[in-house]
């Protein structure tokens, strides 16, 4: 399986690591070659410098044979445009887009794009944690399970 990750930030480099360990062939695209420093040097990933809204850059990263495209830069609109190129032009099966603006995420979800909003997810986690700690009836569950993931 081949995965292309757009954006070599903290999320992108972490995702590259996880997918590589899962046995994926991974390519990472970033406009700033400096960002590739975040990639784990022990894993073998293809790095492509350029903007992922450019079809030639996507082809260089192997979009024509890709099974997965994940757009995780911090620019919502670039993520949206690149993801739509991956989905509609190159028919990539799994296309996921990170979007900070939850409303924009919902609108694109309604027109068939799979969007993930860290804003909503993190707010929910914080909210649930606050509510749990405010209710002394069930104190033991949350803190221990959180520690194990570290």
């Amino acid at each position: 399986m081949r995965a292309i990750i757009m954006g070599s930030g903290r999320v992108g480099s972490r995702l590259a690591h996880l997918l590589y360990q899962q046995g994926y062939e991974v390519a990472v695209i970033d406009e700033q070659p400096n960002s590739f420093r975040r990639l784990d040097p022990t894993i073998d990933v293809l790095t492509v410098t350029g903007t992922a809204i450019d079809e030639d850059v996507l082809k260089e990263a192997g979009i024509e044979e890709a099974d997965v495209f994940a757009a995780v830069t911090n620019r919502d609109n670039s993520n949206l445009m690149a993801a739509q190129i991956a989905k509609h032009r190159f028919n990539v099966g799994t296309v996921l887009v990170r979007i900070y603006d939850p409303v924009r995420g919902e609108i694109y979800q309604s027109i068939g794009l799979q969007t993930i909003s860290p804003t909503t997810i993190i707010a929910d986690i914080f909210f649930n944690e606050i509510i749990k700690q405010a209710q002394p009836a069930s104190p033991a569950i949350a803190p221990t399970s959180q520690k194990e993931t570290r």
Partner: protein
Amino acid sequence: MYIIVVGGGKIGYYLTKTLVNEGREVLLIEKDSKKVATYEERFGSVVVQGDGCEAATLEAAGAARADVLVAVTGDDEDNLVACQIAKAHYNVRRTICRVNNPKNERIIKDLGVDVTVDATNLMKDLIEQYIPERHMVHLLTMRHADLAIVEGRVTAGSPVLGKVISDVRFPARTVISAIVRQSQLLVASGSTRFEEGDEVIAISHREQEGELQTLFTGEQIVQI
């Protein structure tokens, strides 16, 4: 008619100014509050500060009753998203998108934007019209039907020279619309005879442009 302009750079500024002067109802959305303040001084309250890709901004701008949204920022991805949200969420009938990188024009059209404006290609086409050796000029592409308006010049070597229109085997889906002869406009009919120097305006399917070109230039066009 209510028009929303996204992006207050030079194009957005002059477009808004022109529309205001024509008495149109127009609203310009610009991110930079300094620009917004300057523009407000010049045209009054037709400028709002905000991100035209954000639903909240578009909502406040009354996008739901807008007839046209024009996105003219310097970033193609921002223009695309503003147009798509206007279309998908607010049912804006006509979305017009400025294309900065000519490579993006095709995909932006394919992703549902009604009209794309690519200054680079427009200028290239205009330059080509003035290359004297060219006997066939592409004037305009009509996007919905994949049709093009082209202009052919009849020269001494043109296969059509001296023939009447009904005798020429034009490619299918081609209409000879008009002929400009010595600066006079002639409406083409089946009995019109081609003369040297005629400028022939035709509507043709884009795939047939090459075949049509051969009829005017006599050259075989190699399809790449």
